[in-house]
């Protein structure tokens, strides 16, 4: 059962990653990469690695996506 769940999440992550890479709009791409981060933290949970899941959730997806958005905002602002 866990394997099936992992497989579904895996496919979601891969699709998210593919979407993140090939999408034209930057905001959508960054959100997709945030989703990939979130999914990977759940995967870590499935692999019985709670510490890593916590770190991945907070640092891997939250903060990284935040920094991306700050940079994007800065770029839009200097351009604007």
């Amino acid at each position, binding site marked *: 059962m866990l394997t099936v769940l*992992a497989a579904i999440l895996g496919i979601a992550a891969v699709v998210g*990653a593919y979407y*993140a*890479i090939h999408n034209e709009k930057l905001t959508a791409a960054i959100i997709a*990469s945030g989703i990939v981060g979130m999914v990977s933290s759940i*995967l870590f949970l499935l692999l019985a*690695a709670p510490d890593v899941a916590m770190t991945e959730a907070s*640092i891997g997806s939250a903060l*990284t996506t935040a920094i991306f958005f700050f940079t994007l905002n800065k*770029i839009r602002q200097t351009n604007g």
Partner: protein
Amino acid sequence: MDQYLGQVVMAIGFILAILGLYGLLSQKNMIKMILGFSIFTTGVNIIMVAIGYVKGGTAPILDAEGNAVAKFVDPVPQALVLTSIVIGLGVTAMMLAYVMKLYQDKKSLNINDYKDLKW
């Protein structure tokens, strides 16, 4: 029943790593490249944790009385992944800072415009 969990997650890890690498190498936009890079790092982290997974193992936390309950998952890869996630953040933050400054300089996100140093 979670016979193939480790292998499935490992496969996902490899695919993510490959995709990230592909994104890094193919996208012209610098932010997209860094996105690819962070996906690549996430993929690698998944592989590292998957290596440590033992079929039917539980998290390496002993219960209150401190006696071992069942089969444990290998704690070492998890410890290593902690460090590599934070390294990933550090490197991504640095790259983004570079991109911001570069953008101020040439107002373009396309990597091909930054070819002052060649030959």
